């Protein structure tokens, strides 16, 4: 019984709960048991018992939630020691929307501290192992959510993407991850990393699940001034072909730095797209190579302010000798990890008087140019296709000593959030037994188009992730 339950996608499980074929409590119990016993360090907190199930289209299907979503009374530390023991007095809008639609909170997943990282090794609570190869990283920062879904510890999960934090771990773990259009999902209750980039999205076993979760996440939220909701109803994709669709292939995001095994899977995918009726067009994204530089100015600048509230005054552990300065210095010195400190320093420097124009000002101009590039490209093509990550999952500890190499993990995913546009990563195949993700990006609010194309491609690829769930 249990194995059958665990083999279902989220949408399948929801349909069976709705049809009375399976019991939501039993489903929750099966996952709870697996999540509580897991050895990947994917979860930081697992529910003791099934919460009361709200009636709804998500039918009591358990949901894994990245640790940075505030959940009332439940561990929400954004992977940081500075929030150890923090139990928020309120629940984030995205989680509330999902639980109101019937999802049940299974647990909180591990992540790079404050979503800063591409390997999940920056967590204050230890790294997460990749279920495909436990000596390797799951990617980050939503590494816990990606590993949990890939390993079958949860039917589906949500995470957040700032420079690739949903798509890159989805790619490295062989699952589907969507970074929505900026503003489609409320950021209220997401512990902020970079406010102008952060966006919540689903991590799922297949494209249909991603569309179903996303449908219940979107919405204009009066608590988030930058939220817009979605102008379209989110449809569950059915397309088997992509006839007439034009796919842009940008040389800037498909060539340099992409390892051969990834390139091979990517090229095979391009062929499949043609087989499915699609047309490939080379498009230029000339400013995209500057994406990493702009991102590592803008995101740390915003983070340096967003993380100023962690001062030991109102919540979280409090350190120091009672003097105000030592309260600040010791609380933050002990509470934050190295990568967080590095980015706070970077951001503080970039915003400093005398440097603002050269760094923050220039980065914002580059950001505008990158968005302009995409706008021009989408006048020629419907979607842009690239590999999600230049490499497959790398070894634990392999890049921790070299922050720049780590930052380059996001080279192919950073331009989209800078432009505010949506992109999905789906598994394209394996390279040396490790998953390779394919990224499809579209214009703002083109999620329905992305889901349709991704669904058709997914059917043609026929990726089998079941071995990681064993």
């Amino acid at each position, binding site marked *: 019984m249990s194995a059958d339950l665990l083999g279902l996608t989220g949408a399948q499980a929801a349909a069976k709960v709705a049809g009375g074929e399976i019991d939501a409590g039993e489903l929750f119990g099966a996952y709870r048991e697996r999540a509580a016993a897991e050895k990947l360090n994917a979860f930081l907190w697992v529910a003791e018992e099934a919460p009361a199930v709200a009636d709804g289209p998500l039918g009591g299907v358990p949901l894994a939630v990245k640790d940075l979503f505030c959940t009332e009374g439940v561990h929400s530390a954004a992977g940081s020691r500075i929030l150890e023991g923090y139990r928020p007095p309120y629940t984030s809008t995205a989680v509330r929307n999902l639980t109101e639609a019937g999802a049940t909170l299974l647990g909180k997943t591990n992540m790079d501290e404050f979503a800063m990282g591409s390997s999940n090794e920056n967590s204050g609570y230890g790294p997460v192992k990749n279920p495909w190869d436990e000596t390797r990283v799951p990617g980050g920062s939503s590494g816990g959510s990606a590993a949990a879904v890939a390993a079958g510890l949860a039917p589906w999960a949500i995470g957040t993407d700032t420079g690739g934090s949903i798509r890159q771990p989805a790619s490295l773990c062989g699952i589907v991850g969507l970074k929505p259009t900026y503003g489609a999902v409320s950021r209220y209750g997401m512990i902020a990393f970079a406010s102008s980039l952060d966006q919540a999205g689903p991590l799922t076993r297949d494209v249909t699940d991603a569309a179903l979760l996303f449908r219940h996440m979107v919405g204009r939220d009066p608590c988030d*001034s930058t939220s817009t909701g979605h102008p379209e109803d989110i449809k569950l994709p059915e397309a088997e072909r992509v006839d007439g669709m034009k796919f842009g292939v940008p040389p800037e995001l498909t060539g340099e730095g992409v390892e051969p095994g990834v390139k091979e899977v990517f090229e095979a995918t391009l062929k499949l797209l043609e087989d499915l009726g699609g047309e490939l067009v080379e498009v230029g994204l000339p400013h995209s190579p500057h994406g990493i530089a702009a991102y590592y100015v803008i995101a740390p600048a915003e983070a*340096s*302010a967003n993380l100023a509230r962690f001062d030991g005054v109102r919540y979280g552990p409090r350190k120091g000798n009672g003097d105000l300065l030592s309260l600040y210095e010791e609380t933050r010195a002990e509470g934050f990890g190295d990568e967080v400190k590095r980015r706070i320093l970077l951001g503080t420097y970039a915003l400093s008087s005398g440097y603002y124009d050269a760094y923050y000002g220039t980065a914002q101009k580059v950001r505008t140019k990158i968005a302009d590039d995409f706008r021009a490209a989408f006048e020629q093509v419907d979607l842009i296709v690239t590999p999600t990550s230049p490499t497959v999952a790398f070894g634990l500890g392999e890049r921790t000593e070299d922050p720049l190499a780590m930052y380059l993990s996001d080279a192919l995913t950073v331009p989209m959030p800078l432009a505010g546009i949506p992109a999905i990563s789906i598994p394209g195949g394996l390279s040396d037994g490790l998953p390779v993700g394919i990224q499809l990006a579209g214009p703002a609010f083109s999620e329905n188009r992305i889901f349709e194309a991704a669904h058709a491609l997914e059917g043609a690829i026929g990726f089998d992730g079941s071995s990681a769930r064993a």
Partner: protein
Amino acid sequence: MPEFEPVIGLEIHVQLKTRTKMFCGCALSFGEEPNTRTCPVCLGHPGTLPVTNAEAVHFGLMIGMALGCEPAPRSIFHRKNYFYPDLPKGYQISQYDIPLARDGRLGDIRIHRVHLEEDAAKLVHAGESGRIHSAEASIVDFNRGGTPLVEIVTEPDVRSAAQASEWLRLLRVTLRQLGVSDVNMEEGSLRCDANVSIRPAGEQTLGTKTELKNMNSFRFLERGVEAEIERQEGILRGDGTVTQETLHFDPRTGALSPLRSKEEAHDYRYFPEPDLVPVAPTEEMLQRARDALPELPAQRAERLESELGLAPDAAKLLAFRSELGDFFEAAVAADGADPGAIANWVTGEVVARVGDEDPAATKLEPGALAKLVGMVGEGAVAASAAKDVLAKLVSDGGDPAAIVESEGLGRAGGDELAEIVEKVMAENADAVQKVRDGNDKAIGALMGPVMRETKGTADGAEVQRLIRERL
């Protein structure tokens, strides 16, 4: 020795009287138990986001318009970053390079800008100095944190301490008239900092300025600015140079002491607040703000002068104390025969009796005052007797004519008055003789007793006429 000219600019913070805080739904606090008017947003909990208060924008637009400013088509918020326990997010959300409104004028002083921001929480320092650095413990009350503030910055047009405090009074009465703030300096809903520099008279370049803080009354503002002008003059006359610094005014001693450099040596690292969208007032919002503007004190003073012919001082007092102006206009509406006389009574006798209170809160009816002033004008009651009637109207109310009647305060005249005059002249033959000898002042010695006999109800001119007839 050159004469020095002070150059003063003011920065005023006004707490808005909105229903809720600037960026969250908490009700504003008026002395509630500490930390009872808070929520995750104004406590800076992780994941919370600000949402701009529409009523604060409305009030801000009203203030901008009342000060003759141009509202920006699209103003934005910035984050002003610094660490302090009264600042829960580690930054204050404030408008920076594109404020809500700019380039206005109130009275003689040009307005540089008007912008919106949020107030900090309140720190209570346990310890002798009451300041944080030597405190044994500090307690934070977040009730005030996030209260909407409008900051008004003037151009450096003020030239004296007295002008600073007089202008601030005009600003206060203007804001009070708008109904957007309690504007109480002691309670901190109106706060004023001053930038002060001096230069040799006639020079155009500005001297080095200092910033004065913590002057929480009109008197302290005047004293503080006065003291700083003197201090700077002393430095310059002694061939020293003024240091640019922030000074804390101690109202107990009148002393100015520099704030410790750590408290001011900030690089605030302003950058646009990514959690908020720009404030872009629609035509409807602008019209609504325009429609909400009442007649402002400066305009009212001008109207009272030009339309009703009041003296400038009376017009100003009636306009600046709007409750007096309202009472005056109600009286004129009841009987507008002589607005000037009514104005004199309101600004003189009525104010003498009600002090800082609103005359409408006493038993005195505007119509009754108008009638009394009319009776004086017609000679039906003498001015001195009318003051007694007014006292009765203020304490008990009623109809002035009835009071005159029942108290026997009607003007003495006719045979009765003539008899009294004759009696007094008979009893004061000396004085009569002096007047006959050409000492006109001696007539006073006859007038006095007559007025006493008539309880002040006699008309002075009539009494004089009767005396001269009988010399």
